[in-house]
């Protein structure tokens, strides 16, 4: 990867959303058959939706412009009554990084459950927080989980836990939604197929534009009725695209070619994490227990320095490594298909230089 404006090599690990379409994917996009998706006659979109529904073991699917919109549409479709409440992890993407769309647009009250470091939350807390029938109380209408869990470092949550969440949901007649933006990373890391991974959820929002490398888009999967409602919500929000078969073609290509290779991103992430722990002298560290997939969270000792400083140093010079601040004491590196093994080695070198620089100063 090169920055064409100067000639410095840039290694961009700010997010896996930066992935650009590969030549093979571009070819698929250029030759895609299209129609008009608002009239529901774009064959490539329909093909992608059919394929995704089948892979996920769900009745239907819908292609949407973003994961944020995907999650929002599912919340809107599940929570159709006034005074609805959504139970979700306090560090979930929906809760933290989707501009409070659930509240702003869907009018749904979010109630958070404490996320544990492994991306789950306590089952007892979940059950305790489900509302009873009393005019004081909002009406619990949906429970949402996230897999893999971004804020917890790309953690893959256990299917056993998901099954237990589902059990509680069923007991109270609640639907269960999964923010599966990076679900394929979890699938590949666990060696479990998508259908099994989503067995116990009623709906999921799955991103194509992250590790899978597509330029745009996500797909939501769920029951026929849900997707029927979702089509309306999508249009109302301004997500009713026209010849989106172009983008769906990229999705189909990615589902064929880019899932298994996620293993490489996980392997590269592990190499970086190990290197940090080897040289970090406990001033810079990665919790290996939380390293499941393609996200490396590097803790920075606040007594020594801070993430903005580290990010700045990593950015300067050659190669320029671009990462992001994740918390007051963490820097995040997100691996994806544009980061080769060679890039990883160069990145490790640079990180080593920078952290040694701080340690020895």
């Amino acid at each position, binding site marked *: 990867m090169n920055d064409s404006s100067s000639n410095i090599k840039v290694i961009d690990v*700010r*997010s896996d*959303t*930066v*992935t*650009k*379409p590969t030549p093979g994917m571009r070819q698929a*996009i250029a030759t895609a058959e*299209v129609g008009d998706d608002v*009239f529901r*006659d774009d064959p490539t979109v329909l093909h992608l939706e059919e394929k995704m529904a089948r892979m996920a073991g769900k009745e239907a699917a819908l292609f*949407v*412009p*973003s*994961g*944020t*919109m*995907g*999650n*929002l*549409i599912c919340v809107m479709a599940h929570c159709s009554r006034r005074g609805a409440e959504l139970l979700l992890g306090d560090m979930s993407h929906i809760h933290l990084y*989707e*501009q*409070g*769309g659930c*509240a*702003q*647009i869907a*009018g749904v009250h979010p109630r958070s459950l404490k996320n544990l470091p492994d991306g789950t939350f306590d089952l007892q807390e979940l059950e305790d927080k489900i509302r009873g029938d009393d005019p004081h109380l909002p009406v619990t209408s949906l429970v949402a989980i996230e897999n893999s869990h971004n804020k917890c470092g790309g953690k893959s949550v256990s299917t056993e836990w998901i099954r237990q969440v589902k059990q509680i949901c069923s007991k109270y007649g609640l639907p269960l939604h999964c923010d599966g933006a990076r679900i394929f990373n979890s699938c590949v890391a666990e060696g479990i197929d998508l259908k099994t991974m989503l067995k116990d959820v009623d709906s999921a929002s799955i991103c194509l*534009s992250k590790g899978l490398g597509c*330029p*745009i*888009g996500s797909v939501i999967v769920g029951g026929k009725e849900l997707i029927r409602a979702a089509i309306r919500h999508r*249009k*109302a*929000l*301004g*997500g*009713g*695209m*026209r*010849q*989106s*078969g*172009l*983008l769906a073609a990229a999705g189909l290509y990615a589902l064929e070619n880019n899932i298994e290779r996620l293993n490489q991103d996980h392997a590269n992430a592990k190499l970086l994490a190990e290197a940090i722990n080897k040289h970090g002298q406990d001033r810079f560290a990665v919790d290996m227990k939380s390293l499941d997939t393609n996200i490396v969270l590097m803790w920075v000792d606040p007594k020594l320095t801070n993430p903005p400083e580290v990010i700045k140093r990593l950015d300067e010079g050659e190669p320029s490594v671009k990462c992001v601040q994740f918390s007051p004491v963490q820097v995040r590196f997100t691996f994806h298909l544009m980061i080769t093994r060679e890039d990883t080695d160069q990145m490790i070198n640079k990180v080593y230089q920078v952290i040694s620089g701080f340690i020895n100063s």
Partner: protein
Amino acid sequence: FDDDPTVHALEHKIASLVGHEAALFVVTGTMSNQLAMLTWWGNVKDRGLVLAKNAHIEMYELKGLERQEPVHLFTAQNQTLEHIRNALTKAKQFLNAKGKSHQLVLSLENTFHGSVMDIEKMREIREYLPPSIPLHLDGSRIWNASAKTGIPIKTYGSLVDSMNICLSKGLGAPIGSMLTGPRDYIARAKAIRYECGGGWRQAGLVAAAALQAVQDHFPEQCKRDHEMAQYLADQLQSIGAKKLNEVDTNMVFVDLSHMFPGQDPEEFVKTMEQDYGIKVYNEDFKSVRFVAHHQISQEACRELASALKHLAQAQADSKR
């Protein structure tokens, strides 16, 4: 991350075409109009919108404007100064009575159901409007208005504060619309679009298609579309359809109810597709809209007319 160079190129191009400071590339026209209003309204509590009856926003886009704050809609009979003024007066009275935290926006549409809005009428309205009320133009098909009148899009742009302009319609791009306006306004719109999930990633791919469309299709292709619509209107009339409009741009409206008495519009649409291989849209035989575009040939127009005649005849025969 705001680092897609092709999107920036498109935004630059459209901003200068419209004569506004900045532009934002968004997924759809619905989203563009939605962002336009939300950005003008900002954080006020009572939100007012004046627009003409049967404007696209009024017919099809209101749901997306709903947030926790109420939206108060005031419709004008049509887009003349007299009716707009009446609606504005009602709106102002209502909102002033509500309290301090309110904002009114006026939205005009050009073309409106395929008809060009006279620029003099736009000018009149603009001159009447006080600076406290922003003027948004839903210019989804402003290309057609400009191609028809010869008036540059920039001139239309100079009369309004913000504009929605679609790339995915007659211009032929697969996806996308633009919202244009002042620099800080567009910056705010950009931030607001995340709330409904409008933040897309490598949109340069679709922006490239849009850039190509602007290059290839405006204004000559638009003019050809208008001619094609006229041809289509003639063909339809020749088989007995009752003309409902003088063809202004790319749309033809006809009354087919006498040709398909008591028929179900949905069945009609299905039959046209299955038996004749023609895709049409119909909700009410009394007013059926046909839209010409660059992928419709004269032969296609003749085929359509012939198919309608054939189907009408077949249905009349089956009744005897």
